[in-house]
């Protein structure tokens, strides 16, 4: 456990040492800040049926920033170690492979959570200025942030997998960006392709991140997406583990 903690703290610290982390942080804060501003000013101009909090988590801006951050925060995880050769000292000390993989996964996840912390301020500011809460209930906040965590876990694990497959960070980023975007659009199919059968649309609907976020941001905690994202994360991490172990295959 101490070795895992050592690896994890090294991962988190390496984010704080890297310029790309700060670029992502600033980019993300700008985009999400503009998003929040737009949503609130839109609500000022006309009557709407949803709350500021729901609007914020379901806007186009939000999803745009959302799919973009994962390749940026996960591309270096393994690819950089392969490139610099630091994987050699790392895997020749008595540390298990799963400790390495989980430390990288949780390191990226912690950075992802750090990204979201400032957005809590938006709602605090909203309350301070308008004297109205941005959501119907505390459950809506919890639901939204829970869904953010679930999606984050899944997408970070996809990033882990693509990064372990190559020693080139750009390739890792491009593949994970494509995979995440495709998954995301899979959920849109039900709104776009109206001619496919309703069974197919329902099936694809189960994968729709937009739909899940819609439900959770209203404060409705549905167990099906929770099971989906947790199990998919486990699958991705297992694949990552296998790919990481492939250097030990006797060929």
């Amino acid at each position: 456990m101490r070795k895992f903690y050592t690896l994890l703290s090294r991962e988190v610290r390496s984010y704080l040492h890297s310029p790309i982390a700060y670029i992502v942080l600033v980019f993300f804060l700008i985009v999400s800040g503009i998003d929040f501003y737009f949503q609130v000013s839109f609500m000022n101009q006309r009557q709407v049926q949803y709350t500021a909090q729901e609007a914020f988590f379901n806007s186009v801006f939000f999803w745009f920033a959302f799919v973009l951050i994962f390749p940026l925060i996960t591309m270096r995880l393994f690819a950089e170690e392969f490139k610099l050769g630091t994987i050699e000292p790392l895997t020749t000390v008595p540390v298990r492979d799963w400790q390495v993989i989980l430390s990288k996964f949780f390191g990226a996840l912690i950075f992802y959570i750090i990204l979201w912390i400032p957005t809590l301020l938006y709602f605090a500011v909203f309350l301070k200025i308008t004297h109205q809460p941005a959501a119907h209930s505390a459950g809506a906040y919890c639901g939204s942030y829970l869904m953010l965590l679930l999606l984050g876990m899944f997408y970070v694990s996809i990033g882990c997998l693509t990064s372990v497959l190559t020693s080139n960070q750009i390739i890792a980023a491009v593949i994970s960006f494509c995979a995440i975007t495709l998954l995301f659009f899979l959920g849109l199919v039900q709104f776009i392709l109206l001619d496919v059968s309703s069974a197919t649309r329902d099936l694809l609907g189960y994968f729709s991140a937009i739909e899940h976020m819609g439900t959770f941001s209203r404060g409705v905690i549905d167990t099906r997406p929770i099971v989906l994202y947790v199990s998919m994360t486990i699958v991705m991490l297992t694949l990552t583990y296998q790919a990481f172990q492939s250097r030990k295959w006797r060929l």
Partner: protein
Amino acid sequence: MIKVENLTKRYAGQPAIQDLNFEVGQGEIMGFLGPNGAGKTTTMRILASFMPPTSGRASIAGFDVFEQSLQARAHLGYMPENVPLYSDMRVTEYLNYRAALKGVQHRRVAERVGDVKELCGLKEVEKKLIGTLSKGYRQRVGLADALLHEPDLLILDEPTIGLDPNQIRQVRELIKNLGRQHTILLSTHILPEVEMTCSRVIIIHKGRIEACDTPENLLGKIRQAGGVVLEARVGNDNGAEELKKISGVRDVITDREDDWKRFSLRVESGVDVREEVFRLATDRHWAVRELTQRRATLEDVFVELTHPDVV
């Protein structure tokens, strides 16, 4: 301490090492020699559990490097070629991190890190970022890292590459001292280094072991043990032709220095031709300003074994 049996590694069908068999006993300093691409790094990487062999077995302190990799790794201090390090960490921070990964007890970390910094001369750069260090210091950080957990066995892949002569001397002394408590396997290109530090030498060429013996025995074994150097003014004579006629002389190489000529004679082992050369010189009235016997070095052994056509 190290036991290697029929070790073979192929990369995409191309053999990098073939059927290696050797043992390194407790307390030995084993030198691992060979031209570039001979398979030294591959062998060391297999021993460090970085990659598996295609076939064959290797064990460290009785633990198979593949089946019982964690235990084997716990007994090993490994310094990889080119010493890859995290450039965003500071020296002390890095060593603390590595000590924790290697399972050094929490209360002993500060002591061990202090010790290896002292031993490897890293005190003056302890607060610097690794990315800003010179090659020599990076090399020492790698060595300090390998020593952190007081391993029984050290595997050092080219520990002196890229160092200046003073640093090489320091590292050599360090390795010699370490050899009192640790078993060491080190690879290098610098042959005098091996002669001075190693108790035994393996010469590997094209993935196969060509020789495995003490440096003294290796020197005795080669076909031509050293040679004779003659520097003389030979006038109009063809010095090289005359010298070749002496029995025991295999070959003569001539270097010109104005009207003085410098002849390097390769001689068969066990023959001393200096007297003959002197006699020839007096007969032909050559003016001689140098006549010396050159002792064979490990370099000759190395060249003979890995480049037979040169001899």
